[in-house]
């Protein structure tokens, strides 16, 4: 008798697992950036349209495939067509790449979390230089938060060629991150199902706390007004639409096989249409919610820096012209400057290059995304709040929950096909398989803890998943609609869930979504080809800022290998299956 497939204890666990997987760091650090770059409030228009046209249909498709086939991605696509099981293999390869580098973010979050229990916060003050007369040079040129990130956390080398050694502190944090992930996936859905209650709900608690705190900060309204005023002309910019589409696509985590894996543990009769709509709506509203928090923090930081700048200019003028202390304020600064320029022209012109024009807009305009936003901009804002240790602990705890939630989905995508396969699961119990996967990923992940590790992280982040996922989802959609047959799938779903498939989904699956994905693919490829050599940002310690450098040849080869490793699986497995079938037919022919 076959062992019953493990199931989610209740449908709520499944929904929470999907939410916990889809709502990740991208909602917090990529969506606010896109909103800012592409016209603030008006970016919501392409975003919501893409959600309805691309996000919901593709999400529903993946959940339906998983629930119908009741197997991981490899098995599911083998059932659709043996030639297409390469799609499943490609999903597993991409998930494996993702889990290797994604857990490093959790390691960084752990590092910052552990360092938040100090007074003062270590990234709020610069360390002293050798003879204790001033601050460390690199820290002076950059800021204390940048110094803590680039020097103390990453200990980054000036270029990708200089590998450096493994940073033991970061390696320990990475080990801990993998142990925590192992703890959560150890027992399969039994343990994952309970953990996702926390990883899905706790980030919302922290976001609400931060929303209340953020809106009451001085200068928060500046940020909110600046970011959300719609700039309607951006709607005509094709990049806004393309970025809306890609953000929806990657934010929902389509194509990794995690959604198929999660849905395969569902009761066959559960209403996956409702679940798909709920999950995608919650994911998008979390993005918008997180960007409100981020913009109020931006506004606070920009106002703080602006007032600091004004104070510095006033101090400079007061000292040079020996004015009375406290005479210069923000309101009379301009007229006093005018008076001084006319009264002491020579002295003023000497001073002029040192007087920066303080502008609130230029402070607000600094658009940052990714690790820069999470670990530099946010920490800079946090260090200026009262009781900064509490806010810091809450914030990094939230980042951890988001990261671990996404890791659970990634590892499920890898483990479900492995535990489904009869060969492997007969030799090893599922605890051992999970342990082995975590061990291998952790060992390879040590590369990202070396001094040049952050550069390799950027390579993986930018290239490991982007192109391959688009191709995987395209082949998935075509496989279900045209190879398996849309009518056959429709009748399967009706038999399974008892609900008829609406015409809207049929139109989207068969026509609109594949077209959208093809156009995204064309855009990405043309973008890569047009930019020529790929460049990266390297941290220059002597200048205290980022400089652009070219990738060396072996890094470009690694990028090519990353993309090829996953995309080539599809044709290679198809070819292999074809060859095997021919061989089998060749053997069978003489018997018949």
């Amino acid at each position, binding site marked *: 008798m076959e062992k019953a497939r493990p199931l989610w204890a209740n449908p709520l666990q499944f929904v929470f697992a999907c939410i916990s997987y889809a709502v990740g760091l991208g909602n917090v650090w990529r969506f606010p950036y896109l909103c800012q770059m592409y016209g603030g409030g008006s970016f919501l228009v392409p975003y919501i349209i893409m959600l309805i046209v691309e996000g919901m249909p593709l999400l529903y498709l993946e959940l339906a495939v998983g629930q119908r086939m009741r197997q991981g991605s490899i098995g599911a696509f083998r059932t659709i067509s043996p030639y297409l099981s390469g799609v499943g293999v490609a999903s597993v390869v991409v998930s494996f790449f993702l889990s290797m580098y994604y857990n490093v973010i959790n390691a960084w979050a*752990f*590092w910052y979390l*552990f*360092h938040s*229990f*100090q007074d*003062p916060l270590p990234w709020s*003050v610069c*360390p*002293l230089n050798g003879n*204790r*007369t*001033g*601050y460390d040079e690199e820290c002076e040129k950059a800021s204390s938060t940048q110094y803590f990130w680039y020097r103390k956390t990453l200990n980054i080398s000036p270029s990708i060629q200089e590998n450096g050694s493994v940073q033991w502190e970061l390696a*320990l*944090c990475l080990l*801990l991150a993998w*142990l*925590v992930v*192992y*703890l959560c996936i*150890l*027992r399969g859905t039994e*343990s994952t199902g309970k953990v996702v209650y926390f990883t899905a709900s706790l980030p919302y608690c922290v976001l609400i706390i931060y929303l209340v705190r953020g809106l009451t900060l001085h200068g928060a309204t500046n940020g909110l007004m600046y970011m959300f005023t719609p700039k309607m002309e951006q709607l005509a910019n094709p990049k806004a639409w393309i970025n809306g589409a890609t953000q929806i696509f990657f934010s929902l985590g389509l194509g990794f096989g995690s959604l198929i894996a999660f849905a395969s543990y569902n009761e066959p009769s559960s209403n996956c249409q409702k679940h798909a709509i709920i999950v995608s709506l919650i994911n998008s509203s979390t993005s918008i919610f997180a960007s409100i928090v981020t913009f109020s923090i931006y506004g606070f930081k920009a106002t703080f820096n602006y007032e600091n700048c004004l104070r510095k200019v006033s101090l400079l003028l*007061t*000292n040079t012209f*020996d*004015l*009375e*202390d*406290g005479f210069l304020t923000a309101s009379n600064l301009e007229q006093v400057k005018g008076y001084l320029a006319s009264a002491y022209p020579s002295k003023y012109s000497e001073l002029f290059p040192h007087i920066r024009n303080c502008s609130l807009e230029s402070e607000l305009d600094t658009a940052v995304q990714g690790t820069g936003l999470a670990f530099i901009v946010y920490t800079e804002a946090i260090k200026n709040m009262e009781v900064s240790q509490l806010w810091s602990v809450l914030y990094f705890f939230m980042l951890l929950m988001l990261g671990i939630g996404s890791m659970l989905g990634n590892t499920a995508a890898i483990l479900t096909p492995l535990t489904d396969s009869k060969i492997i699961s007969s030799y090893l*119990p599922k*605890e051992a398989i999970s342990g082995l996967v975590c061990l291998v990923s952790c060992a390879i992940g040590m590369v990202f803890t070396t001094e040049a590790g952050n550069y390799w992280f950027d390579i993986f982040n930018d290239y490991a998943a982007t192109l391959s996922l688009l191709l995987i989802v395209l082949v998935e959609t075509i496989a279900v609609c045209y190879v398996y047959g849309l009518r056959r799938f429709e009748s399967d779903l009706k038999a399974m869930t008892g609900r008829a498939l609406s015409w809207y989904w049929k139109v989207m699956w068969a026509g609109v979504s594949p077209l959208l994905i093809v156009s995204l693919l064309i855009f990405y490829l043309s973008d890569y080809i047009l930019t020529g050599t790929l460049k990266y940002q390297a941290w220059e310690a002597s200048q205290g800022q980022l400089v652009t450098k070219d990738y060396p040849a072996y890094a470009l080869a690694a990028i090519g290998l990353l993309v090829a490793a996953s995309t080539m699986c599809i044709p290679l497995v198809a070819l292999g299956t074809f060859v095997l079938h021919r061989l089998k037919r060749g053997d069978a022919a003489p018997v018949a």
Partner: protein
Amino acid sequence: MLRLLFFLVTAIHAELCQPGAENAFKVRLSIRTALGDKAYAWDTNEEYLFKAMVAFSMRKVPNREATEISHVLLCNVTQRVSFWFVVTDSSKNHTLPAVEVQSAIRMNRNRINNAFSLNDQTLEFLKIPSTLAPPTDPSVPIWIIIFGVIFCIVIVAITLLILSGIRQRRRKNKEPSEVDDAEDKCENMITIENGIPCDPLDTKGGHINDAFMTEDERLTPL
């Protein structure tokens, strides 16, 4: 005569204490920034206190124990509040070398700051860099302690889960063999009639077949 002497003294003082003079230092105070509403006004009494503090610092230098308050000269007091000062020797003709004054002020910077309720940023001696206090470094960094705690908790949890998983699996493996043993026992006791084993009633939760009622109940009672 007295007026001539006074004139001479001020003339000499004017020479010794000048902005940019040799061995002269500029001092800048930001009282209102530091104290806000509680700021005091800078007047000659405060200047006297300042001279006293500088003289006190110089007296701590070996060979300069005889420095008096009158040896410290202040000039060019502005509204900022900023001024220049020099320290002269006992003859009042020469100024003490800048290096000595600098090291003396650096040694006693804290006392001077406290006398005026200011700090290194609000009471500035230009060209005398202050020694910054290094942050207190605990012997074991705090983050390692927290890391160790969480690490141990996670390891213990993993071990517990793995052990309970192994125990569950062992129990599951034993159950089918236990059921097998019971069936063997049954088979030994099963009576065989026509090659068909009869299940004895005591090993299976027997149901009483109502068709086979007892003898006396078949007959209706009288």
